């Protein structure tokens, strides 16, 4: 009896296998795919020092995916996020990205806040021919070398610095510039941009006062900054370093001598520093929540983010939203999940979501967009708990981005996918 049963099962399986072979796997897969959701792999540091930023970005991702699904999803399939924690470790980011591709069969990867996570994810994406788009600053292009499937809609260090420098020149804040920064690869990219723009606009670049990453006490460095007697001091620090630096620069009274400009900041840093600490400082941001008064889509996004997180969204969350949206919208429009096809469609793509018009430049995948130069408010001038800045000016366009030749790309080949 048992033998008969086993034979019956084996025959059945053989028959099913033969039928599958005759009808062809693609047909079967298409049927299955039509019913399945499309998986968007997300890798962010949900634990560790960037945990809050990660949660904020996950909220932005959720809102973007909801909007894409409301528009019909991608190729008729609903988009589903599969989220993994990088634990703020590159080896974990790499492992989780691999798992998302190999086990979860994610169509695209997004995520990463800091460079080492981005490098790890880009390596996995390139190896597996999967598009990877970053939430953090887009700076993984080194001397014209990059993965052709690598994107990122946040600002690049060059355009962040160049926007601040052009702003200073336009506002006639002075022609002698200096920078105070933590000494590692990211602020070093700002140094290059500031010194190049200084040459372009005829300003004097007096160099950089470097402080080690993780500096608690900036006081020993501030006399050196003051000794440069610069009209403008750019400060390029991040997170806890920026908060400590902002407090101590205010304590030292550097703003009485020079115009202080934080190359880039986030709402959370101003919040951590306290009311009035950024008073009279300028700071660059990819987006600021008060844009909701200018763009209806930004207002809608603000309300939904606030409902989810009970706090005003930061600039990086807006970049996250546009990163996810443009990737999925492009795949929908080209009706394909094929990596090369979507990559080519993303190159040069123009779009507008939560701010002014943006475009992914084909030759280096840098997102040409506005940088918002904001001025810190006094404690008395704040209207509510999130009202740390006023937008003074949007600075953007090709003028703020480094030329592709300058980055080391071949000018005869107009897109990254043609170069690599």
């Amino acid at each position, binding site marked *: 009896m048992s033998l008969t049963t086993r034979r019956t099962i084996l025959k059945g399986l053989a028959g099913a296998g033969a039928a599958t072979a005759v009808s062809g796997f693609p047909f079967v897969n298409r049927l299955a795919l039509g019913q399945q959701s499309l998986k968007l792999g997300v890798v962010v540091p949900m*634990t*560790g020092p960037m945990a809050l930023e990660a949660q904020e970005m996950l909220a932005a991702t959720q809102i973007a995916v909801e909007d894409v699904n409301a528009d019909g999803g991608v190729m008729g399939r609903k988009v589903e996020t599969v989220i993994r924690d990088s634990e703020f470790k590159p080896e974990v980011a790499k492992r989780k990205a691999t798992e998302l591709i190999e086990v979860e069969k994610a169509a695209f990867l997004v995520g990463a806040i800091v460079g080492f996570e981005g490098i790890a994810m880009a390596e996995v994406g390139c190896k597996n021919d999967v598009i990877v788009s970053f939430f953090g600053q887009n700076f993984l292009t080194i001397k014209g070398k990059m993965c052709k499937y690598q994107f990122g809609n946040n600002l690049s260090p060059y355009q962040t610095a160049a926007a601040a420098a052009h702003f200073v020149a336009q506002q006639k804040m002075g022609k002698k510039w200096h920078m105070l920064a933590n000494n590692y690869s990211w602020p070093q990219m700002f140094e290059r941009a500031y010194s190049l723009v200084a040459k372009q606009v005829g300003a004097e670049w007096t160099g950089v006062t470097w402080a080690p990453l*993780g500096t608690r006490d900036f006081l020993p460095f501030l006399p050196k900054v003051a000794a440069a007697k610069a009209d403008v001091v750019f400060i390029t620090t991040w997170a*806890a370093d920026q*908060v400590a630096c902002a407090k101590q620069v205010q304590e030292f009274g550097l703003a009485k001598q020079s115009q202080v400009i934080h190359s880039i900041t986030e709402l959370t840093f101003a919040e*951590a520093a*306290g009311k009035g600490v950024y008073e009279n400082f300028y700071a660059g941001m990819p987006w600021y929540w008060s844009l909701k008064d200018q763009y209806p889509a930004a207002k809608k996004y603000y309300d939904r983010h606030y409902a989810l997180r009970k706090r005003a969204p930061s600039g990086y969350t807006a970049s996250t939203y546009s990163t996810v949206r443009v990737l999925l919208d492009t795949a929908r429009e080209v009706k394909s999940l094929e990596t090369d096809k979507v990559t080519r469609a993303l190159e040069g793509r123009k779009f507008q979501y939560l701010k002014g018009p943006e475009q992914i430049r084909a030759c280096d995948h840098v997102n040409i967009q506005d940088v918002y130069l904001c001025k810190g408010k006094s404690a008395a001038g704040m209207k509510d708990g999130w009202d740390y800045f006023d937008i003074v000016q949007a600075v953007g366009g090709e003028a703020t981005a480094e030329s592709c030749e300058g980055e080391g790309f071949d000018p005869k080949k107009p897109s990254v996918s043609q170069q690599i």
Partner: protein
Amino acid sequence: MNGCILILVALGLSIVFGLMGIINFAHGVFYMLGAYAGWLTVHLTGNFWLALAVAPVTVGLLGALVERGVLKRIYGTKNANFAGVLVTYGLAIMIPDLVRMTFGRPGKPFAVPQVLTGSLFQLGATEVHGYRVFILLVTAVLLPLLWLLLNKTNLGLVIRAGTSDNLMVQLLGINVARTWTITYSLGAALAALAGVITAPLVAVAPEMGGLVLIECFIVTVVGGMGSFLGVVAGGLLIGQTLALTGMVYDVLADVVIYLMMALVLLVRPRGLFGQEGMSEE
């Protein structure tokens, strides 16, 4: 500022190690909790001076709870020292996450009290500000008091004796368990005080204890485990080295303190002021 903070935090670390033989990885957490306790007090009452008292007292009590509730269970067990490292390391991971869950991830704003803002006088190219002088004064007042506590009181006698030969102190019938609790609590309170006085100048965030702990380990190793004078000398040496190297050639700032530690250990394996005793077991 760095030197003062390092001395205050490292003193607790050194005393705890000297007496209890525990390499206390949770010590940085007490520094962070001090800053949070201070923030909460200022947030609720608006009184910075009250925060200066509340932070060390509450965190000191928490330290006593940790010692009684957790560390006590590993005393006398096999590989107690190793277990101590594991347990305190676990606390150093767990407590910052609890703080994140309770207070949220963004740092907490903590301003310099109005009366201490502004420059007092010019020293070379540097303006010396009121709050910096205040930190110096707090350290300058506390150090002699702590020295008196450790050298001129019965408690101090027991702590010093325990640091030198813990077993002998127990054999003499002294209630070592109570001394350990008090010592651990005192260490936590010192770290908390350092945390609350640093808070107006830095980012009050759950991860703030991590870096200071590493530097304090170097201070205690350079100065000599369990040595009061060693911690003071080590704190000043490391603090000044960090500041001066940072000003001259910042890339070397982190490297130099490790080189200094290696050099001191080569020449004086017990540290600059370390003495032969329990800490070598």
